[in-house]
């Protein structure tokens, strides 16, 4: 089934589907979405994927590292606070510093914030509930490796499942995020408008996903890996992964 909707997700660009790029999915104790990411990349997008254990040093060549969702170290102390000191994170920070692409989903986003690769923090949802539902996300910027295959203003339907996904940043940090256009996704209603009602967890400025200033690290609370197959109700998550694949294909050509 995959080739058909893979090419659909990549706008018919078959070169992206060949899976030349190398993905690494980092597994922490308590991660629980690594298999979903693996399956979405391998089965739905025909990519080369490898699991990486958090205790190992980062070895081998990768184009994109994914920090998946879950409850690393049981979310003890703060979500992502302990995982941030896992041995592999030294390599991840170095990889990001050299311009490598890093994608943090849900708990992965929390780990990236804790490790200082992304600004801000994720705190308890304002209604204190664990929320598991499909949400609408507006693509705010497309000049990034994570959203280059989407259109500005496009609304993506992707699920969230978290208890601590309320994004917080102090006013100066928010101002910087705006100025550098680092907010890539916002929670919106079906018509693409932000509102308190469409903001499921109380995130400041309806922020669902941000990238680093250098635009090579991206963290988001929604789970694109759970929206890559029509059986799951949406294929919109493919846009994120196919963007990354397309960006890597361009990088590859430039270096060839």
């Amino acid at each position, binding site marked *: 089934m995959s080739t058909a909707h893979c090419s659909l997700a990549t706008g018919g660009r078959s070169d992206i589907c060949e899976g030349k790029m190398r993905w690494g999915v980092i597994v922490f104790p308590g991660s629980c979405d690594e298999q979903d990411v693996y399956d979405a990349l391998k089965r739905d997008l025909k990519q080369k994927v490898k699991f990486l254990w958090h205790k190992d040093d980062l070895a081998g060549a990768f184009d994109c590292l994914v920090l998946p969702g879950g409850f690393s170290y049981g979310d003890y*102390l*703060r979500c992502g*606070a*302990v995982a941030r*000191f896992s041995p592999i994170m030294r390599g991840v920070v170095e990889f990001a510093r050299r311009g490598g692409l890093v994608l943090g989903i849900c708990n992965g986003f929390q780990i990236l*914030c*804790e490790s200082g690769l992304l*600004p*801000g*923090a994720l*705190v*308890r*949802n*304002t*209604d*204190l509930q664990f929320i598991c539902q499909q949400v609408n996300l507006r693509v705010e910027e497309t000049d990034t490796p994570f959203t280059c295959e989407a259109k500005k203003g496009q609304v993506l339907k992707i699920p969230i499942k978290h208890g601590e996904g*309320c994004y*917080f*940043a*102090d006013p100066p940090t928010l101002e910087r995020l705006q100025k550098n256009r680092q907010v890539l996704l916002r929670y919106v209603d079906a018509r693409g408008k932000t509102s308190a009602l469409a903001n499921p967890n*109380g995130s400041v400025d309806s922020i669902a996903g941000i990238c680093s200033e250098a635009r090579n690290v991206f963290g988001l609370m929604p789970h694109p890996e759970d929206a890559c197959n029509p059986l799951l109700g949406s294929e919109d998550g493919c846009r994120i992964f196919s963007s990354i694949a397309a960006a890597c294909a361009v990088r590859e050509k430039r270096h060839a």
Partner: protein
Amino acid sequence: MRVKIFVSLRSGVLDPQGKAIERSLHTLGYGEVQDVRMGKYLELKLEASSREAAESRIREMCDKLLANPVIEDYRFEIE
């Protein structure tokens, strides 16, 4: 030395747990309660050559791991 560390949310950071506790206290008849903020309390034993040395080590631990400066403040007591 025994150390008590108190970690609290910085002002300006929403504290929905504190709010829920406050509402609960009001429901129980403690209407005089205001501004409930929930935090964390840690106890630990520490070996150090002096009080100053201990303080500097604890500050380091708090900055690195025990508190997140983006959202939290901390203070500690050494006994």
